């Protein structure tokens, strides 16, 4: 099962190395890891997407909490939350050729073309993982020359911090 863990960590040197080292040495599989400062410059927020059964998840969470610089860990998968992944990609789009088609697709997926070259365009798109994956699939036939993603970030909706079974992923598009 896919879980989204959200961790508050002290913003000190080495904390990312410590956490990623722990996860690697205990053999946990991390699909995605994103990290950045929060509203409090002393703290950073790390978002993990972990795939595993409940027992693995329990261990990952407890081992994270054991790290002295980790302040708090929440498994937000069972709550009503918004999840986003930001992607930049370059795709082959020669003028006059498939460029119009690509523009339409970008619009449908609510992305933006942020740079135009002679033979390719750079597209910015954000959303849930499933949407990003779907967009990548649509772009593949045109020829993706470069792709970069931030990894997933997530936030629980206001007033939704009570577990809401079955609604964990609603309306995040």
């Amino acid at each position: 099962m896919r879980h989204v863990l959200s961790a508050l960590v002290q913003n000190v040197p080495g904390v990312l190395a410590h956490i990623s080292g722990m996860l690697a040495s205990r053999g946990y599989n991390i699909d995605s890891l994103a990290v950045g400062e929060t509203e409090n410059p002393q703290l950073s927020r790390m978002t993990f997407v972990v795939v595993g059964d409940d027992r693995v998840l329990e261990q990952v969470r407890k081992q994270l909490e054991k790290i002295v610089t980790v302040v708090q860990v929440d498994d937000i998968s069972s709550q009503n939350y918004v999840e986003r992944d930001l992607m930049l990609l370059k795709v082959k789009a020669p003028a006059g050729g498939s460029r119009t088609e690509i523009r339409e697709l970008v619009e449908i997926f609510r992305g933006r073309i942020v740079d135009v070259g002679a033979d390719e365009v750079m597209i910015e798109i954000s959303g849930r993982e499933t949407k990003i994956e779907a967009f990548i699939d649509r772009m593949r036939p045109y020829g993706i020359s470069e792709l970069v993603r931030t990894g997933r970030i997530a936030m629980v909706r206001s007033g939704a911090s009570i577990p809401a079974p079955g609604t964990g992923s609603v309306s995040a598009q």
Partner: protein
Amino acid sequence: MGVRRVTAAKTATDSRLMSGADILVKSLVENGVERIFAYPGGTSMPMHQALTRYADRIRTILPRHEQGGCFAAQGYARSTGKPGVCMATSGPGATNLVTALADAKLDSIPIVAITGQVTRMAIGTDAFQETPIVEVCRGITKHHYLVTDIRDLPRILKEAFHIATTGRQGPVLVDLPKDVQLEQCIPNWDAPMDLPGYRAEPPRAKPEQIRQVAAAIKLAKRPVLYAGGGVISSGASAALRELVNKTNIPVTLTLMGLGAVPTEDRHCLDMLGMHGSVYSNWAVRDCDLLIAVGVRFDDRVTGKVSAFARHAKIVHIDIDPSEINKNKEAHIPIVSDVKFALEELNKVVEKNDEVDAWLEQCRVWKRDNPFRYDRNFDGILPQHAIDVLSDLTRNRDTIISVGVGQHQMWSAQFYKFHRPRTWLCSSGLGTMGFGLPAAMGAQSAYPNSLVIDIDGDGSFQMNIQELATCYCEKLPVKVMLLNNQHLGMVVQWEDRFFQKNRAHTYLGPITHAEARGKGQGQYAEERYPDFVTIAKGYGCGSASVRARTDLAPAIEEMINYDGPYVLDVEVPYVEHVLPMIPAGQTVDDMITE
């Protein structure tokens, strides 16, 4: 508070100004440190200079290898319950601590290790004797610091001792660049700790959890207590004994738990697991309630974990939440300081009279299947030597340390412990060479106690240089060397699982027949090295003994010797540690012959 570099032109005019090295050493004093095991080098010299200025409050003991220093700190910590402190220089000095820090992590021993580091400017340039020791140690310490600002020093040291000694205890590394040691500032001793992610209060069992355990005990017909290092480190031995006496529940101990209840207590089923007693493993096999206290269901205890205590309801009490359900699922999981939980349990627990018959059953098993060896052997078997040592020291204040291997398991089986913190053993990591330096550390804490390292000739040679420390620092440690000329435990596995093919397990010259596995009989007759001469070269007393009748007098002589002493006991190498449950197997696969 001002920060200023020490330059030739400027000297401290404000008397409150202190160097980083002095702040560090004063912080050690403030945190109650009385001993430090420290080996100097280029980047730690300022701290050693500072140590001379505080010599009236901290005794600095110079080991002969940094690993010896850290194991000595462990011996101090394991025997006293107080944090052990060691210091090394950067680079190789620091990396020499690594094994002993990993050892402390696995056995949850409170250690504060200080390392010198190259100057801040030089960090990352592959400078002379530079290693990124914090990077190296991330996974094997409880926490770690690289100090980059002198003003952080008092806070970091406060935090280091706090983290090392609270919760599940463990080693903390503080890496201190040389220029920070030399820099000066007016320290703020009142700087508060900044640990928003660290739970300061020990977790405590909730009343309903305690009632659940009491109810389970009331219902159980065949309960067993499985107690480990957490009982020792939380100071819960008295509470455990009270529980055992109140309920009559038999108790088995892990390697880390030896001493938590006296070996001779009628409830004590001795050690369990791979080389545990027949009766303890049978009791766990047949129990209907397993009360696991301060343990972690290690693979050397459980064997095949799904078959371990298969029929039992499992109560697991531990201070570390990540141990609960890690290896074995608990029916009643309790995250708690062990001492608190046991004391609370003692207030409400009631005895189930059906337990008496079960305890009797366990005692019959114990009577019929004791740890055994050939008592008629014409010579000295290692088990016999430990048996005799145990008898001869039974009325003395004795602390035992061991290396790793057969002698370690036999010591766990045959030495009779009476009190907690009298058994120093590298249990989780299984580090050869632990015994002598650990004994040294304990002796420094208890100068009047009898501290004996029961060692093997393989382990002993991994830190034999510490005989110099014992002699020079007046630490009268005794070594009873069970010398079989081989790596006995590996030989045993060769015998059992590798068709007796000797693969580099003989410790003498390669020209000897033994090296090719063609030795005759039980003893390796051509002895190497000459431990008596080595010991005497270091200034220690020493003798060798082979005849059975000479053993007791030789041990007496060792005990009564004024100073460190090595008793070289010649033993055969063909003995196996039994019983044995092969790795990953179950109690039903136990080998007893």
